[in-house]
Protein backbone atom coordinates (compact mmCIF):
# COMPACT_ATOMS: atom_id res chain seq x y z
CA UNK A 1 0.00 0.00 0.00
CA UNK A 2 1.35 3.38 -0.94
CA UNK A 3 1.69 5.72 2.02
CA UNK A 4 -0.55 8.78 2.02
CA UNK A 5 1.02 11.59 0.03
CA UNK A 6 0.10 14.04 2.76
CA UNK A 7 2.40 12.60 5.41
CA UNK A 8 5.36 11.84 3.18
CA UNK A 9 8.49 13.94 3.44
CA UNK A 10 10.47 15.25 0.54
CA UNK A 11 13.81 13.48 0.17
CA UNK A 12 15.59 16.60 1.37
CA UNK A 13 13.44 16.69 4.52
CA UNK A 14 14.00 13.00 5.13
CA UNK A 15 17.76 13.39 4.65
CA UNK A 16 17.76 16.30 7.11
CA UNK A 17 16.11 14.05 9.68
CA UNK A 18 18.92 11.50 9.33
CA UNK A 19 21.65 14.15 9.21
CA UNK A 20 20.40 15.35 12.57
CA UNK A 21 21.36 12.00 14.11
CA UNK A 22 24.78 11.28 12.62
CA UNK A 23 27.99 12.54 14.18
CA UNK A 24 31.25 11.56 12.48
CA UNK A 25 30.00 8.45 10.64
CA UNK A 26 31.03 8.23 6.98
CA UNK A 27 28.22 8.35 4.43
CA UNK A 28 28.30 7.15 0.81
CA UNK A 29 25.80 8.91 -1.47
CA UNK A 30 24.53 7.35 -4.67
CA UNK A 31 24.79 9.43 -7.82
CA UNK A 32 22.01 11.68 -9.05
CA UNK A 33 20.00 14.49 -7.48
CA UNK A 34 20.24 12.78 -4.08
CA UNK A 35 23.98 13.47 -3.91
CA UNK A 36 23.52 17.07 -5.03
CA UNK A 37 20.83 17.68 -2.43
CA UNK A 38 23.02 16.18 0.29
CA UNK A 39 25.96 18.33 -0.78
CA UNK A 40 23.81 21.42 -0.52
CA UNK A 41 22.22 20.46 2.80
CA UNK A 42 25.10 19.06 4.79
CA UNK A 43 28.53 18.85 3.14
CA UNK A 44 31.23 17.37 5.38
CA UNK A 45 34.54 15.55 4.79
CA UNK A 46 32.97 12.24 5.81
CA UNK A 47 30.63 12.47 2.79
CA UNK A 48 31.50 10.59 -0.39
CA UNK A 49 29.32 11.62 -3.34
CA UNK A 50 29.17 9.40 -6.39
CA UNK A 51 28.81 10.94 -9.82
CA UNK A 52 28.47 7.73 -11.81
CA UNK A 53 28.59 3.96 -11.37
CA UNK A 54 24.85 3.65 -10.84
CA UNK A 55 23.90 0.92 -8.42
CA UNK A 56 27.29 0.83 -6.73
CA UNK A 57 26.83 2.94 -3.60
CA UNK A 58 25.90 0.03 -1.33
CA UNK A 59 28.98 -1.95 -2.41
CA UNK A 60 31.28 0.98 -1.69
CA UNK A 61 29.64 1.19 1.73
CA UNK A 62 30.14 -2.53 2.18
CA UNK A 63 33.86 -2.36 1.35
CA UNK A 64 34.29 0.57 3.71
CA UNK A 65 32.32 -1.18 6.47
CA UNK A 66 34.56 -4.25 6.14
CA UNK A 67 37.67 -2.06 6.30
CA UNK A 68 36.38 -0.17 9.38
CA UNK A 69 34.43 -2.70 11.44
CA UNK A 70 34.59 -0.47 14.52
CA UNK A 71 32.48 2.36 13.03
CA UNK A 72 29.01 2.59 11.59
CA UNK A 73 28.96 3.27 7.86
CA UNK A 74 25.88 4.73 6.18
CA UNK A 75 24.80 4.54 2.56
CA UNK A 76 22.23 7.01 1.21
CA UNK A 77 20.72 5.28 -1.78
CA UNK A 78 17.79 5.66 -4.15
CA UNK A 79 15.23 3.16 -5.39
CA UNK A 80 16.58 3.25 -8.96
CA UNK A 81 20.08 2.58 -7.70
CA UNK A 82 18.98 -0.27 -5.45
CA UNK A 83 17.07 -1.87 -8.32
CA UNK A 84 20.13 -1.66 -10.55
CA UNK A 85 22.50 -3.06 -7.95
CA UNK A 86 20.08 -5.50 -6.37
CA UNK A 87 22.57 -8.35 -6.44
CA UNK A 88 24.70 -6.45 -3.93
CA UNK A 89 21.87 -6.83 -1.39
CA UNK A 90 22.65 -10.56 -1.47
CA UNK A 91 26.35 -9.90 -0.87
CA UNK A 92 25.53 -7.65 2.10
CA UNK A 93 22.96 -10.10 3.45
CA UNK A 94 25.43 -12.94 3.07
CA UNK A 95 28.39 -11.18 4.66
CA UNK A 96 26.29 -9.48 7.35
CA UNK A 97 28.54 -6.55 8.24
CA UNK A 98 27.22 -5.41 11.63
CA UNK A 99 28.19 -1.81 11.01
CA UNK A 100 26.43 -1.08 7.71
CA UNK A 101 23.24 0.99 7.56
CA UNK A 102 21.65 1.15 4.13
CA UNK A 103 19.19 4.03 3.95
CA UNK A 104 17.07 4.10 0.81
CA UNK A 105 15.09 7.20 -0.13
CA UNK A 106 12.35 5.73 -2.27
CA UNK A 107 10.43 8.21 -4.42
CA UNK A 108 9.37 5.52 -6.91
CA UNK A 109 10.78 7.47 -9.86
CA UNK A 110 14.02 8.15 -11.69
CA UNK A 111 13.94 11.72 -10.45
CA UNK A 112 17.21 12.80 -12.08
CA UNK A 113 16.10 11.82 -15.58
CA UNK A 114 12.51 12.98 -15.88
CA UNK A 115 10.49 11.09 -13.25
CA UNK A 116 10.06 7.84 -15.15
CA UNK A 117 8.47 5.29 -12.78
CA UNK A 118 10.67 2.63 -11.14
CA UNK A 119 9.53 -0.86 -10.15
CA UNK A 120 9.66 0.10 -6.49
CA UNK A 121 5.99 1.09 -6.67
CA UNK A 122 5.29 -2.58 -7.46
CA UNK A 123 8.12 -4.32 -5.58
CA UNK A 124 8.66 -3.93 -1.85
CA UNK A 125 12.38 -3.20 -1.57
CA UNK A 126 12.22 -3.75 2.20
CA UNK A 127 10.92 -7.27 1.56
CA UNK A 128 13.78 -7.86 -0.86
CA UNK A 129 16.31 -6.70 1.75
CA UNK A 130 14.72 -8.90 4.41
CA UNK A 131 14.81 -11.92 2.09
CA UNK A 132 18.43 -11.13 1.20
CA UNK A 133 19.45 -11.37 4.85
CA UNK A 134 19.58 -7.85 6.27
CA UNK A 135 19.09 -8.12 10.03
CA UNK A 136 17.07 -4.97 10.73
CA UNK A 137 14.61 -3.86 8.08
CA UNK A 138 12.09 -1.04 8.43
CA UNK A 139 9.85 0.92 6.09
CA UNK A 140 8.86 4.43 7.19
CA UNK A 141 7.65 7.72 5.81
CA UNK A 142 6.84 10.04 8.71
CA UNK A 143 9.55 12.15 10.24
CA UNK A 144 9.23 10.82 13.78
CA UNK A 145 9.46 7.23 12.51
CA UNK A 146 12.52 8.08 10.43
CA UNK A 147 14.21 9.49 13.52
CA UNK A 148 13.13 6.60 15.77
CA UNK A 149 14.26 3.83 13.43
CA UNK A 150 17.45 5.55 12.41
CA UNK A 151 18.42 6.09 16.03
CA UNK A 152 17.89 2.46 16.88
CA UNK A 153 19.82 1.30 13.79
CA UNK A 154 22.75 3.49 14.82
CA UNK A 155 22.78 1.59 18.11
CA UNK A 156 22.08 -1.92 16.83
CA UNK A 157 24.10 -4.56 15.03
CA UNK A 158 23.19 -4.70 11.35
CA UNK A 159 23.27 -4.85 8.49
CA UNK A 160 20.27 -2.57 8.60
CA UNK A 161 17.98 -1.42 5.81
CA UNK A 162 15.84 1.66 6.27
CA UNK A 163 13.40 2.26 3.44
CA UNK A 164 12.10 5.81 3.59
CA UNK A 165 9.18 6.48 1.30
CA UNK A 166 9.47 10.07 0.09
CA UNK A 167 7.59 12.23 -2.38
CA UNK A 168 8.93 13.24 -5.76
CA UNK A 169 9.84 16.79 -4.79
CA UNK A 170 13.39 17.71 -5.75
CA UNK A 171 15.48 20.35 -4.06
CA UNK A 172 17.07 22.89 -6.38
CA UNK A 173 20.73 21.95 -6.03
CA UNK A 174 23.87 22.46 -8.10
CA UNK A 175 26.42 19.82 -8.99
CA UNK A 176 28.84 18.78 -6.28
CA UNK A 177 31.72 21.23 -6.50
CA UNK A 178 34.37 18.99 -4.96
CA UNK A 179 36.58 17.41 -7.64
CA UNK A 180 36.32 13.61 -7.45
CA UNK A 181 40.06 13.10 -6.90
CA UNK A 182 40.00 15.68 -4.10
CA UNK A 183 36.99 13.98 -2.59
CA UNK A 184 38.89 10.69 -2.44
CA UNK A 185 41.73 12.38 -0.54
CA UNK A 186 39.39 14.31 1.74
CA UNK A 187 37.26 11.28 2.54
CA UNK A 188 40.20 8.94 3.18
CA UNK A 189 41.77 11.46 5.52
CA UNK A 190 38.46 11.84 7.39
CA UNK A 191 38.17 8.05 7.75
CA UNK A 192 41.78 7.76 8.96
CA UNK A 193 41.38 10.40 11.62
CA UNK A 194 38.30 8.58 12.88
CA UNK A 195 40.31 5.41 13.33
CA UNK A 196 42.99 7.09 15.45
Amino acid at each position, binding site marked *: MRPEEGVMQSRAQAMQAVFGLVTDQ*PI*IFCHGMLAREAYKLNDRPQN*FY*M*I*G*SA*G*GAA*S*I*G*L*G*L*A*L*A*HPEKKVLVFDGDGNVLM*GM*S*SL*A*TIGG*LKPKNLIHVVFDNEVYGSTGNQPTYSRLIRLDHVAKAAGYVNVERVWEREDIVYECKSMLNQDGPSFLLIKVNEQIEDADRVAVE*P*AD*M*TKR*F*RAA*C*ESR*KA
Partner: protein
Amino acid sequence: MIESDDFVRALEGIGCNFFTGVPDMMLAGIIDVLGERRLYTPAVREDEALTMAAGAFLGGKIPVVLMENSGLGKAMNVLMSLNLIYTIPCVMVISWRGFEGEDASEHLVMGQTMPQLLDTIRIPHRTLSEQTLDHDVQWTAKTFMEQRIPVALLVKKGVVKTLQP
Protein backbone atom coordinates in the same frame (compact mmCIF):
# COMPACT_ATOMS: atom_id res chain seq x y z
CA MET B 1 53.93 -22.84 -13.09
CA ILE B 2 53.45 -20.36 -10.23
CA GLU B 3 52.06 -21.88 -7.05
CA SER B 4 48.86 -20.11 -6.00
CA ASP B 5 50.24 -19.67 -2.52
CA ASP B 6 53.39 -17.97 -3.86
CA PHE B 7 51.28 -15.63 -5.96
CA VAL B 8 49.14 -14.63 -2.98
CA ARG B 9 52.25 -14.07 -0.85
CA ALA B 10 53.80 -11.96 -3.60
CA LEU B 11 50.71 -9.73 -3.56
CA GLU B 12 50.79 -9.57 0.22
CA GLY B 13 54.44 -8.63 -0.11
CA ILE B 14 53.48 -5.38 -1.82
CA GLY B 15 50.87 -4.62 0.82
CA CYS B 16 47.69 -6.10 -0.64
CA ASN B 17 45.31 -6.85 2.21
CA PHE B 18 41.78 -6.96 0.80
CA PHE B 19 40.83 -9.60 -1.75
CA THR B 20 37.52 -9.82 -3.58
CA GLY B 21 36.31 -10.95 -6.97
CA VAL B 22 34.19 -13.35 -8.95
CA PRO B 23 35.63 -16.82 -9.61
CA ASP B 24 37.03 -18.27 -12.80
CA MET B 25 38.45 -21.79 -13.09
CA MET B 26 41.85 -20.36 -14.00
CA LEU B 27 41.85 -18.38 -10.72
CA ALA B 28 40.36 -21.16 -8.60
CA GLY B 29 43.69 -22.09 -7.00
CA ILE B 30 44.29 -18.50 -5.89
CA ILE B 31 40.76 -18.17 -4.53
CA ASP B 32 41.17 -21.49 -2.73
CA VAL B 33 44.31 -20.26 -0.96
CA LEU B 34 42.64 -16.94 -0.10
CA GLY B 35 39.57 -18.76 1.20
CA GLU B 36 41.58 -21.12 3.37
CA ARG B 37 43.42 -18.18 4.86
CA ARG B 38 40.14 -16.28 5.32
CA LEU B 39 41.35 -13.41 3.18
CA TYR B 40 38.67 -13.56 0.50
CA THR B 41 35.40 -11.60 0.38
CA PRO B 42 33.34 -12.96 -2.52
CA ALA B 43 31.39 -10.58 -4.75
CA VAL B 44 28.57 -11.60 -7.08
CA ARG B 45 29.38 -9.34 -10.03
CA GLU B 46 32.66 -7.90 -11.24
CA ASP B 47 31.42 -4.32 -11.11
CA GLU B 48 30.33 -4.96 -7.54
CA ALA B 49 33.77 -6.39 -6.73
CA LEU B 50 35.37 -3.19 -8.01
CA THR B 51 33.06 -0.92 -6.01
CA MET B 52 33.56 -3.03 -2.88
CA ALA B 53 37.32 -2.76 -3.42
CA ALA B 54 36.91 1.00 -3.84
CA GLY B 55 35.17 1.18 -0.47
CA ALA B 56 37.97 -0.86 1.09
CA PHE B 57 40.55 1.50 -0.43
CA LEU B 58 38.67 4.50 0.99
CA GLY B 59 38.96 2.74 4.33
CA GLY B 60 42.73 2.37 4.01
CA LYS B 61 43.06 -1.10 2.45
CA ILE B 62 45.11 -2.11 -0.59
CA PRO B 63 42.55 -4.10 -2.59
CA VAL B 64 42.85 -6.87 -5.15
CA VAL B 65 40.00 -7.78 -7.52
CA LEU B 66 40.02 -11.18 -9.21
CA MET B 67 37.95 -11.75 -12.33
CA GLU B 68 37.67 -13.51 -15.65
CA ASN B 69 37.97 -11.15 -18.59
CA SER B 70 34.27 -11.55 -19.43
CA GLY B 71 33.75 -9.65 -16.17
CA LEU B 72 35.90 -6.83 -17.46
CA GLY B 73 33.01 -5.99 -19.78
CA LYS B 74 30.67 -5.63 -16.80
CA ALA B 75 33.30 -3.69 -14.88
CA MET B 76 34.04 -1.13 -17.61
CA ASN B 77 31.63 1.54 -16.40
CA VAL B 78 32.92 1.40 -12.83
CA LEU B 79 36.51 1.69 -14.07
CA MET B 80 35.59 4.72 -16.19
CA SER B 81 33.17 6.55 -13.89
CA LEU B 82 34.60 5.67 -10.48
CA ASN B 83 38.19 4.39 -10.35
CA LEU B 84 39.72 6.58 -13.07
CA ILE B 85 37.75 9.70 -12.16
CA TYR B 86 38.21 9.53 -8.39
CA THR B 87 41.75 8.08 -8.65
CA ILE B 88 40.82 5.00 -6.67
CA PRO B 89 43.35 2.25 -7.39
CA CYS B 90 43.23 -1.51 -7.04
CA VAL B 91 45.15 -4.50 -8.33
CA MET B 92 43.11 -6.36 -10.93
CA VAL B 93 44.01 -9.99 -11.54
CA ILE B 94 42.27 -10.93 -14.78
CA SER B 95 42.26 -14.40 -16.29
CA TRP B 96 42.76 -14.26 -20.04
CA ARG B 97 40.03 -16.45 -21.46
CA GLY B 98 40.04 -16.68 -25.25
CA PHE B 99 43.78 -16.07 -25.58
CA GLU B 100 44.83 -16.65 -29.21
CA GLY B 101 41.37 -17.92 -30.05
CA GLU B 102 41.66 -21.09 -28.01
CA ASP B 103 38.52 -21.17 -25.95
CA ALA B 104 34.74 -21.41 -26.12
CA SER B 105 33.20 -19.00 -28.58
CA GLU B 106 31.78 -16.62 -25.96
CA HIS B 107 35.36 -15.77 -24.93
CA LEU B 108 36.84 -15.10 -28.35
CA VAL B 109 35.98 -11.43 -28.89
CA MET B 110 37.06 -10.40 -25.40
CA GLY B 111 40.11 -12.68 -25.61
CA GLN B 112 41.25 -10.94 -28.75
CA THR B 113 40.50 -7.36 -27.75
CA MET B 114 41.22 -7.19 -24.01
CA PRO B 115 44.67 -5.53 -24.21
CA GLN B 116 43.34 -2.88 -26.61
CA LEU B 117 40.30 -2.31 -24.39
CA LEU B 118 42.57 -1.74 -21.40
CA ASP B 119 44.83 0.53 -23.48
CA THR B 120 41.83 2.52 -24.69
CA ILE B 121 40.69 3.35 -21.18
CA ARG B 122 44.34 3.73 -20.06
CA ILE B 123 44.48 0.94 -17.52
CA PRO B 124 48.14 -0.13 -17.21
CA HIS B 125 48.48 -3.87 -17.67
CA ARG B 126 51.10 -6.57 -17.79
CA THR B 127 50.96 -10.26 -18.57
CA LEU B 128 52.13 -12.40 -15.69
CA SER B 129 54.75 -15.10 -16.18
CA GLU B 130 56.59 -17.44 -13.83
CA GLN B 131 59.98 -16.06 -14.85
CA THR B 132 59.01 -12.46 -14.20
CA LEU B 133 56.68 -12.85 -11.19
CA ASP B 134 58.76 -10.66 -8.88
CA HIS B 135 59.19 -7.95 -11.52
CA ASP B 136 55.51 -8.08 -12.45
CA VAL B 137 54.44 -7.62 -8.86
CA GLN B 138 56.95 -4.85 -8.21
CA TRP B 139 55.80 -3.08 -11.37
CA THR B 140 52.22 -3.42 -10.13
CA ALA B 141 53.08 -1.81 -6.79
CA LYS B 142 55.02 1.02 -8.42
CA THR B 143 52.31 1.78 -10.97
CA PHE B 144 49.60 1.63 -8.28
CA MET B 145 51.45 4.11 -6.08
CA GLU B 146 52.42 6.49 -8.89
CA GLN B 147 49.19 6.60 -10.87
CA ARG B 148 46.56 5.80 -8.21
CA ILE B 149 44.41 3.94 -10.70
CA PRO B 150 43.62 0.24 -11.26
CA VAL B 151 46.54 -1.84 -12.50
CA ALA B 152 45.87 -5.14 -14.27
CA LEU B 153 47.85 -8.37 -14.14
CA LEU B 154 46.72 -10.66 -16.94
CA VAL B 155 46.89 -14.38 -16.24
CA LYS B 156 47.05 -16.81 -19.15
CA LYS B 157 46.09 -20.45 -18.86
CA GLY B 158 48.72 -22.58 -17.13
CA VAL B 159 50.67 -19.70 -15.58
CA VAL B 160 49.26 -20.00 -12.04
CA LYS B 161 48.48 -23.45 -10.69
CA THR B 162 44.76 -24.02 -10.38
CA LEU B 163 42.52 -26.74 -8.95
CA GLN B 164 42.03 -29.91 -10.93
CA PRO B 165 38.60 -29.76 -12.55
